[in-house]
């Protein structure tokens, strides 16, 4: 990095004399302008003044163009162009595709889980039906004393309910496995997100190098930019000072406002 700074400075030393007038030239030109003004020669005064202004502006532009070229060269010397091009041209669009994929993985897993919840509610209703059936059978038990053959019918009924309950149990077991398996998205999405985090660190590093190379240095981080008007802050993330309120804070705030 130091080499680049030196190379910029070295070029600055080689620079042709700037086109901005120096002190002596200023004095001469200003004297001309003053004598034209004192001689009441308005057109000469205007012409000389314009010349001076133009000379000064041209000098500034020449220097600015030179600086821009040098900066561009310095960045090129460091292969930043290539590195940034790779980051901006390939890796960032890639990261966007990866993150879209993470969103999809999470969404698919959530739907799968919710589907199982819906199915399981149905199973739960059937289970409640079985309990009701057993209640009905219990009510019929006293009749067995009067007519022992009824015991056989009730035994058959109990067997039917048992069968239904076993079936429900087996289906619930499958449900639990499906829910557990649906969580595997977390492993994949975690890996993808970690890669994107690594990319963000790379970009951060490249930008810091660029700042140093341009002689700006890395200053203390600017305070977090306030969320632009109309832009929402999104979910509060633990560990980030985003000023997000908890439900309790929100309740207290609303209570203050008369809710």
């Amino acid at each position, binding site marked *: 990095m130091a080499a680049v700074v030196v190379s910029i400075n070295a070029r600055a030393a080689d620079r042709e004399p700037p086109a901005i007038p120096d002190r002596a030239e200023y004095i001469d030109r200003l004297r001309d302008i003053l004598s034209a003004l004192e001689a009441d020669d308005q057109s000469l005064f205007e012409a000389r003044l314009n010349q001076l202004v133009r000379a000064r502006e041209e000098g500034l532009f020449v220097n600015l163009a030179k600086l821009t070229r040098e900066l561009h060269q310095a960045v090129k010397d460091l292969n930043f162009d290539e590195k940034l091009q790779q980051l901006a041209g390939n890796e960032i669009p890639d990261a966007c595709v990866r993150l879209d994929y993470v969103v999809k993985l999470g*969404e698919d897993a959530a739907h799968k889980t919710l589907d199982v919840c819906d199915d399981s509610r149905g199973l739960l209703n059937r289970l409640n039906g079985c309990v009701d059936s057993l209640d009905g059978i219990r009510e019929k038990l006293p009749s067995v004393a009067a007519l022992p053959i009824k015991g056989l019918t009730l035994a058959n009924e109990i067997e039917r309910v048992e069968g239904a309950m076993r079936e429900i149990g087996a289906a619930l077991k499958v449900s639990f496995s499906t829910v557990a398996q649906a969580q595997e998205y977390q492993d994949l999405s975690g890996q993808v997100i970690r890669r994107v985090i690594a990319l963000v660190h790379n970009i951060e590093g490249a930008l810091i190098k660029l700042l140093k190379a341009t002689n700006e240095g890395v200053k203390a981080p600017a305070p977090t930019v306030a969320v632009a008007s109309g832009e929402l*802050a999104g979910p509060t993330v633990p560990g980030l000072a*985003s000023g*997000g309120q908890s*439900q309790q*804070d*929100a309740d207290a*705030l609303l209570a203050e*406002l008369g809710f």
Partner: protein
Amino acid sequence: MDKNLRILIVDDFSTMRRIVKNLLGDLGFTNTAEADDGKTAWPMLQAGGFDFVVTDWNMPGMTGIDLLKAIRGDDKLKGLPVLMVTAEAQRDQIIEAAKAGVNGYIIKPFTAATLKEKLDKIFARFEQAA
């Protein structure tokens, strides 16, 4: 409270709509409909028949806060209770929603108990007012 209330659930994430729908179902409210943003919700509300709105804030098309403002600005709908269920937790936003006339504010992620508590509170107020 009338469990047959017709409730419109507005959220751009279909999973969240399903979760809210299930939670409402657990609380006995099964008469629900869904919309994926304010733009979709608005004609449904205009068509009438809804007694309650549960809406997210951040949605493409038309946000929940704009939907709330549209509801409050509409002669037919202005009295409709609106519960905001959102990840937006900034103080300014909560105040903005309150000023726009929201009836309850739930911050995601939330629990079934929070949803029940806010619904009970809103219904108690409406019954008091009635």
